[in-house]
């Protein structure tokens, strides 16, 4: 049976079904989107395209998808490092910072100095 045109409606669940160029385009968009302070998007990118990039038999676009996944993972690691550092510093020194600490705080725990 000949598929003259295929179009999917809605969101993608199954990456199997979309053509490779689409996959590449999607991966690239997710990668580029992550630069808008969106490490979560990079995380989704890595998890979603991991199988595509590394565990599938090779196809033409796979190399590029691999590179995007790797770059997303790298960006994600950087973000996680920065956030962890900041959170550690904040939680540790918040009480000592006095007024500045309060100003930065969204919620202030009760009952601690």
């Amino acid at each position, binding site marked *: *049976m*000949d*598929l*003259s*045109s*295929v*179009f*999917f*409606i*809605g*969101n*993608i*669940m*199954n990456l199997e*079904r*979309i*053509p490779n*160029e*689409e996959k590449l*385009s*999607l991966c690239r968009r997710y990668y580029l*989107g992550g630069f*808008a*302070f*969106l*490490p*979560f*998007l990079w995380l*989704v990118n890595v*998890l*979603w395209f991991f199988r595509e990039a590394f565990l599938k038999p090779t196809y033409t676009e796979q190399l590029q998808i691999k590179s995007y996944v790797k770059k997303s993972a790298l960006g994600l690691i950087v973000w996680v490092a920065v*956030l962890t550092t*900041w*959170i550690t510093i*904040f*939680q540790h020194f*918040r009480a000592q910072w006095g007024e500045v600490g309060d100003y*930065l*705080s*969204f*919620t*202030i*725990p*009760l*009952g601690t100095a």
Partner: protein
Amino acid sequence: MQCLSNDGTEVGRHTETTPGRNEVELNGQPPTARPPQVLTDSEEDEDEELTLKYGAKHVIMLFIPVTLCMVVVVATIKSVSFYTQKDGQQLIYTPFREDTETVGQRALNSMLNAAIMISVIVVMTLVLVVLYKYRCYKVIQGWLFFSNLLLLFFFSFIYLGEVFKTYNVAMDYFTLAVIIWNFGVVGMICIHWKGPLRLQQAYLIMISALMALVFIKYLPEWTAWLILAAISVYDLLAVLCPKGPLRILVETAQERNEPIFPALIYSSTMVWLFNMADSAEPRNNSSHPVPQQENQDAVAPTAQPEDDGGFTPAWVNQQQHQLGPMQSTEDSRREIQELPSARPPPVEDEEERGVKLGLGDFIFYSMLVGKASATASGDWNTTIACFVAILIGLCLTLLLLAIFKKALPALPISITFGLVFYFATDNLVRPFMDQLAVHQFYI
């Protein structure tokens, strides 16, 4: 633009089903030329069997998200006291207060509240029908987009704040901004554009839970129960009566042979729309109407008319939720659709149709169970009883769907069971159990 407008919560639900291959045409649609279908008796039986088998599978597939949503709501209610505190603030759609002196006054007030809310919902449904009929798709899409924006950013901000307060955790603005920004943007991407299905399902569950929590907090007691009952009745009428707005909507969509605009529906699978040039039966399942079809770059934009029973309009009603504390109302609509996949995948290239349930259903189910856990004297007994009741109702609804193969409302049966179980358990079973415990009599 929509702030300060007097939109209401509108709920309409119905389930759409795809007629089987050997069924008559859908309402309002003249029979089109069908490819010759020769079905023997044994094929029909097989069809039935497969229908029921897939129906059963889909029931299970819907249990999980409904349960998850309820679990989230109940967990939040039990741990974060914010959602059970009555601050005295109410939504503007329920202006009458319930802290009156006499019971009669209270009853009257709550009935008036419920009446106002329901009429707002009816108006919203009609507006939706009109908008759809006159092809103002952009308006509807923008509305949905905006309301999702509100839910994903503002309500989750409040929720997160309350959770942090409950667990006495310090949080700085920077980290909070990063969290909310990521949560919101990725949510919008997953729901309105393309994203992994699991993530989209998770987001839909979360926003339904958030909505249910808002309702639980801002609706006074009797009003809430009355609204639940009234919504079920309205749902029934709107979907099944010939002049019901939802039914009109469905029929219009079918006449136009087009997938519905971005619906917020929870779907268990995705569906492919194929246009096979030399195949006798184009198989079309539009379970997820694409939000912006023009954005599909690599996709053929032509919609082929669907001329056989495989056509399943994705149908959803929208529900609006209002923003009480801000004194401004922003509404979001949820469309609901329940669509069982009554056909086995005919050819290897077709995805199995998934089941879809509207978000409004999630919201009201969770609201019922949440209220049961918040205010019932029987506490966990009542909560679990309501939970079981809703699931039973859902099963029955899906069963009826498989039998009747037409649009059905998803609320009435479940909500009725839920309400009956709530009041019965609270007022009959719990005192009974207490007395047994007092007298140390174990049964």
